[in-house]
């Protein structure tokens, strides 16, 4: 093997892979703190299980679906890399122009595939059967995640068209958010919702999860440069500034509307900011992340009202935070994308020197396609599973708590 990877770039992607892997436990705690104590293990379990199942499926087939036949401007990859064939210590296909080992690229991308279905668990909290959930995310990552990742990250038609997505605003957040919406339409509301109060059982866990997510997001966004260079540096700066500004935006509206600035609000605003900056991270600079973040904080807070307006039960606000946040970021990228930050920006954003609306249009198309594709397939998938092996936990199981009824465990004891 003659390929000698760049040690600095490799070091950065190695640790970024570990960081993104660490986000799934972070998400588990972010969500786990918000559910009731009788369901916390079920929530943690769903997230950790995604690490087990998706990793194996990724090696078997999904990596190949996403990144096989890269650059084909099509809808899905092929099976060339199935079972990790040729996923070795070399540079991989020229398309990726890697300075790191191809096997590392595969590992890094795997961590994205793991967390994406895990994001859905916040919407469906407190009412999913474990077996149905396992089957759902297994099929989903093959039928939805693989193709969407290919279209955007693998040189498929959306990226070929010109849409930009630095680290997964569409692939991860719009995608998971749309799926979440579909699944909750199938499984219905939590037993007792909305009349029974269901306060978070351990908000410090949610804050802990927020800290872990923010930390891991450094690898998620800045790692997506696949190199330890200026773009990565800018992406990291943005990944601090946007969540910070989003936290402020969220807290200000919250204070004005409900009279209090809450810790859950601070956490939620920050996460919304992380979501929104994801597609933009390596493409915008200067004060743009602050504008994007601040707008996101306000918009996502207001989007909380959607679930009341439309009458669905999105337990932990995945729609407001991930779907809306992902859309806000993907579309604002059309305003702020800046070629002086990243030469991959072919069409500068509306507000940038020499900018126009070309990119904005591409962003809207890519967002809509992702949303629509994910929603439709997820809806079908969830409906079939609900009809067959069952996806919604029974009333008795929900009353007793999923931890005991599904997993024969209790979270806390003396």
């Amino acid at each position, binding site marked *: 093997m003659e390929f000698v990877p760049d040690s600095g770039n490799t070091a950065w992607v190695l640790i970024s892979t570990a960081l993104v892997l660490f986000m799934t436990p972070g998400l588990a705690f972010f969500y786990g703190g918000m559910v009731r104590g009788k369901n916390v293990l079920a929530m943690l379990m769903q997230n950790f299980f995604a690490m087990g199942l998706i990793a194996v499926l990724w090696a078997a087939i999904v990596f190949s679906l996403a990144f096989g036949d890269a650059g084909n401007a099509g809808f899905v990859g092929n099976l060339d890399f199935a079972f990790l064939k040729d996923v070795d210590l070399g540079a991989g296909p020229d398309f990726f122009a890697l300075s790191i080992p191809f096997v590392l690229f595969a590992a890094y991308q795997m961590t994205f595939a793991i967390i994406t279905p895990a994001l859905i668990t916040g919407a469906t909290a407190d009412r999913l059967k474990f077996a149905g959930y396992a089957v759902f995310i297994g099929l989903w990552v093959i039928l939805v995640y693989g193709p969407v990742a290919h279209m955007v990250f693998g040189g498929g038609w959306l990226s070929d068209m010109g849409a930009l997505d630095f680290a997964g605003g569409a692939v991860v957040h719009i995608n998971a958010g749309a799926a979440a919406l579909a699944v909750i339409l199938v499984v219905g509301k939590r037993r007792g919702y909305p009349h029974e109060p269901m306060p978070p059982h351990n908000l410090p866990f949610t804050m802990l999860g927020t800290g872990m997510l923010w930390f891991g997001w450094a690898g998620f966004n800045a790692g997506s440069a696949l190199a330890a260079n200026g773009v990565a540096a800018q992406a990291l700066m943005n990944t601090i500034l946007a969540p910070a500004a989003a936290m402020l935006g969220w807290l200000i509206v919250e204070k004005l509307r409900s009279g209090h600035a809450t810790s859950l609000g601070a956490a939620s605003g920050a996460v919304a900011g992380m979501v929104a900056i994801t597609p933009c991270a390596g493409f915008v600079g200067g004060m743009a992340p602050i504008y994007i973040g601040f707008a996101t904080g306000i918009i996502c807070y207001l989007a909380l009202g959607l679930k009341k307006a439309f009458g669905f039960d999105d337990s932990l606000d995945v729609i407001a935070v991930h779907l809306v946040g992902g859309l806000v970021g993907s579309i604002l990228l059309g305003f702020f994308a800046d070629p002086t930050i990243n030469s991959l920006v072919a069409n500068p954003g509306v507000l940038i020197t020499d900018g126009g609306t070309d990119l904005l249009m591409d962003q809207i198309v890519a967002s809509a396609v992702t949303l629509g594709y994910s929603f439709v397939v997820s809806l079908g998938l969830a409906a079939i599973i609900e009809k067959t092996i069952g996806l919604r936990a029974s009333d008795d199981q929900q009353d007793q708590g999923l931890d005991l009824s599904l997993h024969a465990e*209790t979270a806390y004891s003396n």
Partner: protein
Amino acid sequence: MKLITAVIKPFKLDQVKEALKAAGVQGMTVTEVQGFGRQSGHTEVYRGAEYTVEFVPKIKLEILADDGVVDAISEALVGAARTDKIGDGKIWVTEVAQVQRIRTGERGGEAV
């Protein structure tokens, strides 16, 4: 003056509280407890070891009430707490010799 004590299923607390309010109850004291009884405990599994847990989470309510309203309150409580499944719990009444509101020093019926 009587003290009505009831042990109920936790997820029934909200409904019971509403029923009691409707029955005119203005105060009560609630404790998280563990019940042991006919309702069979559940099995918990930790690393392959199965434990039978005979104690089930329950909620205990204590309501001080004038003698005259005890039956009405009991009925309201039983009505709301009942699921007809084993483990619904008990309700019992004891005599109270004296009761006082700490804030005002009022005694007896005034105090509850």
